[in-house]
């Protein structure tokens, strides 16, 4: 394994800028790593080695021509297959989009390119981002580099696994109910969910429009902040994007202190259903924050308990509408068009064949929840719950600067264990969903290994809307203190993957 793949994104960017290596050399090292381990990990759905090297050489050319490039120029990034890419297929993990080549780049994609990042390939995901394990991908599951028999989290499991397996120093994800933070937690890396609207949804294949948020994965907080900064900011193509400056996340990640801050522990997150090893590491992290100078208080958010049921009305409702367009008329899969069937029949056959069971379950849930006569009791009520959760957050943030909780109640579970039990699967997002319901900023940083299974545990840090810098600041402080204690990053304790 080349030493280049162990380096952080910030280091790689600096080495390339200093001329000590080239984007092409860095790209080749990562391509080699992908070739060596991705047969086992299956983080990627699409890697075009030639295309990657061409991108890298183009960045080297831009630098040689004297162009002023950002700190991540030449650094590889693994890109979740939910973002459209004009030069690569985009499937959202679904058979219904197999082979589709979008005619346009998502805003996030375009900004990665503009910043000189080299898109290494498209990463695996739960179909249409619906899931917490990446087992719902139509293209087979991704495996957790810590234990190949376990899930890497989801829906952005390909992105978390790619970074944890040193296939890429950075990756993109989307977080609708925890799809960045939960995979980051169970693979021992950093994953951030920016403020809703802080990063553009244009070209992000929608699951639940009012919740979907693009965000970064990295092996450390500063790298995540650099990637966050590279693709965030107002986009006139997305009406819900926030027309405000990107919060100073990089500066906050460098600052890495909690002096004078008040940290709230969410009382409702803990106890029954939480793995003891997860709670132990979480409690230690809270003590650590106190030892670093933060004031720690317990905060009650009584309505957080309703977040998950409300989420499972709002997200499927929006999804049932967002996924209607996959009707075999203009792109993607078409089944049964033999000249004897009506358009409606072809639509029905295509959707029956093209969507997986979890997607169908959520389309049916959402269709039901929006139906005339049920709307007020379900969708309408769920929106009211959203307001109540917002009030809980507002009240909490009057007392504290950030809230903390475990990112997910358990460590990575074995592949197949929850595949037939949707409710058990949904519980993986119990602690992450409230921030999606209100759109505020959150991050997951590694806080140790659970004693029972030796698997990573994540600490979730939540801040108000547009308080993204706070979660990076606190996350970086925790990271620095823990790495001092561990003598290096948590990921260094992961077993070496055998090259095959």
């Amino acid at each position, binding site marked *: 394994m080349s030493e280049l793949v162990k380096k952080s994104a910030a280091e790689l960017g600096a080495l390339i800028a200093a001329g000590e290596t080239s984007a092409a050399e860095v790209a080749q090292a990562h391509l080699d790593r992908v070739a060596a381990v991705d047969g086992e990990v299956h983080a990627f759905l699409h890697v075009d080695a030639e295309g990657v090297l061409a991108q890298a050489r183009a960045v080297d050319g831009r630098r040689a021509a004297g162009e002023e490039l950002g700190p991540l120029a030449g650094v590889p990034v693994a890109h979740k297959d939910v*973002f*459209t890419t004009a030069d690569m297929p*985009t499937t*959202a993990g679904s058979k219904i*989009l197999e082979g*589709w080549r*979008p*005619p*346009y780049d*998502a805003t996030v994609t375009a900004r990665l390119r503009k910043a000189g990042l080299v898109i290494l390939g498209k990463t695996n995901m739960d179909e249409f981002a619906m899931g917490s394990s990446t087992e719902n991908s139509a293209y087979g599951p991704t495996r957790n580099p810590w234990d190949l028999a376990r899930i890497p989290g989801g829906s952005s499991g390909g992105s978390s696994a790619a970074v944890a397996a040193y296939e890429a120093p950075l990756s993109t994800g989307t977080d609708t109910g925890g799809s960045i933070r939960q995979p980051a937690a169970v693979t021992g890396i950093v994953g951030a969910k920016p403020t809703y609207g802080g990063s553009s*949804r*244009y*070209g*992000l*294949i*929608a699951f*639940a*429009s*009012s919740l979907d948020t693009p965000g970064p994965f990295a092996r450390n907080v500063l790298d995540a902040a650099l990637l966050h900064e590279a693709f965030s900011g107002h986009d*006139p*193509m*997305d*009406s*819900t994007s926030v027309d405000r400056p990107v919060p100073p996340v990089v500066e906050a990640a460098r600052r890495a202190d909690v002096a004078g801050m008040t940290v709230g522990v969410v009382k409702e997150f803990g106890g029954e259903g939480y793995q003891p090893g997860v709670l132990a590491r979480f409690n230690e992290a809270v003590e650590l924050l106190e030892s670093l100078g933060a004031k720690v208080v317990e905060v009650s958010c009584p309505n957080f308990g309703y977040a998950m049921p409300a989420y499972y009305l709002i997200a499927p*409702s*929006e999804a*049932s*509408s967002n996924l*209607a*367009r*996959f*009707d075999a*008329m*203009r*792109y993607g899969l078409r089944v049964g068009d033999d000249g004897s069937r009506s*358009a*409606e029949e072809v*639509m029905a056959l295509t959707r029956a064949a093209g969507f997986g069971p979890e997607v169908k379950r959520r389309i049916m849930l959402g*269709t039901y929840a*929006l*139906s*005339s006569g049920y*709307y007020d009791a379900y*969708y309408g009520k769920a929106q009211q719950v959203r307001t109540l959760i917002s009030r809980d957050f507002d009240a909490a943030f009057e007392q504290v600067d950030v809230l903390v909780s475990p990112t997910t109640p358990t460590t990575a579970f074995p592949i197949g264990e929850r595949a037939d039990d949707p409710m058990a699967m949904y519980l993986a997002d119990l602690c992450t969903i409230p921030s999606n319901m209100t759109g505020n900023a959150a991050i997951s940083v590694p806080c140790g290994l659970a004693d029972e299974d030796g698997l990573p545990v994540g600490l979730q840090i939540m801040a108000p809307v547009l308080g993204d810098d706070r979660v990076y600041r606190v996350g970086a402080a925790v990271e620095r203190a823990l790495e001092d204690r561990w003598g290096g990053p948590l990921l260094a304790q992961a077993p070496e993957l055998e090259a095959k």
Partner: protein
Amino acid sequence: MSTPTVMKFEQALAKFEPVLGIETHIELGTNSKMFCGCPTAFGAAPNTQVCPVCLGLPGSLPVTNHAAIEGIIKIGLALNCDIVEWCRFARKNYFYPDMPKDYQISQYDEPLCVDGHLDVEVEGETYRIEIERVHMEEDTGKSQHVGGATGRIQGADHSLVDYNRAGIPLVEIVTKPITATGDKAPLVARAYATELRELVRSLGVSDVRMEQGSMRCDVNVSLMPRGAAEWGTRTETKNVNSLRSVERAVRSEIERQAAVLDSGGRIVQETRHFHENTGTTTSGRSKEEAQDYRYFPEPDLVPMAPSREWVEELRATLPELPAARRKRVQQEWNLSELELRDAVNAGAVELIEDTIKAGAAAPAARKWWMNELSRRATEQGVELAELPITPEQVARVQAMVDARELNDKLARKVFEGVLAGEGAPDEVVAARGLKVVSDDGALAAIIDQVIADNADVADKIRAGRVAAAGALVGAVMKASRGQADAGRARELILEKLGAS
């Protein structure tokens, strides 16, 4: 399908009182579509004015067209509506091949404009049509069903879809129930559609051309027995593509429903299609198994909150509205009711007014537009305003007539030339050599010849029968191939014959 029997209109009205409701869709004439930057020109090659947004490609997002919102607010204000302070778009979900997203962005329970009215006049009596709501939505694509007898989807071999129309801004104007119109119901419906078209045209926000589909009416009709308190079941007739058809559709539906009710039958709540060739309606989709559109607020767009200042600014830009203009021009031009109605129906009021502004006298301006040019528009099957001639050009021709450089006959030839694309009036006059011969020398030679040829008539004139001069003037005109100045010729003839 059996042909429904009908009851004679007068008889139907003796037994039943009709209640109407009219929903009108108007395509706004904005340069770009409702939610993307695609052009909106009519008649472009199929699927050439499309992009990821109006094709509903995965990942694409809508962005509201400010000019369209301006347009609908102007319509709302002209219809005396309240413009709400806050409202949202909603998704109307249903599957159809010409719907790119399989939902239409529309408005549901929060329309932008509410509670207006429009006064219309029928046979000297004023009817106030109450407006329930005016809301904003996007148009669908256009399906073309190939093969089969009816051009409708039933029986077609295959269908083609043109998405150029998809996403064109569409304003829907819905009346409250129109009652107590009695046997004037068909005329009131037509007068409403006519007045609405005039109103919207005067605002300059749409070309409101029913034959091109930029204005489309759906007509709701129900009957109740005279003296009854409860309204009957209504039908909704679609495909009503001209003002005349609005009147005919109402009349035909009254006659049909009366026959059904009179024979003890019941009216089925359904959509019906109007057929231009027969003037009757046939049954379409039944609404009794009502479509559930699963409306919910569009999460991809932020709410609309037009500021009061902006609304007042727009109100201040409203032009003189048709009713006020009609009153004024009738007085200024000294027109009878009938003359006014003819000018209005021909769409000539503005053209005449602009011609007067360009220097022509009112009677002359009206004469050219209502006679010569109306005739040519009818011949060519186009609207008066579409003739390739401007009011300024008409005024220029009249100026030449006033200066005796042209007579009426020559003026008509100038119009012919201008309409044939031969250039401006002066260019046509020059190119065709259409100057009136008023130069005395040239005329004198012709007159001498005419007197010599018509000695008997000349004698009568010499004997004092001045009226006989007309015959000689006619001969002069003939000899000059219409180019002589008739007035000057007459003066010269009388002078020569000593009768002046």
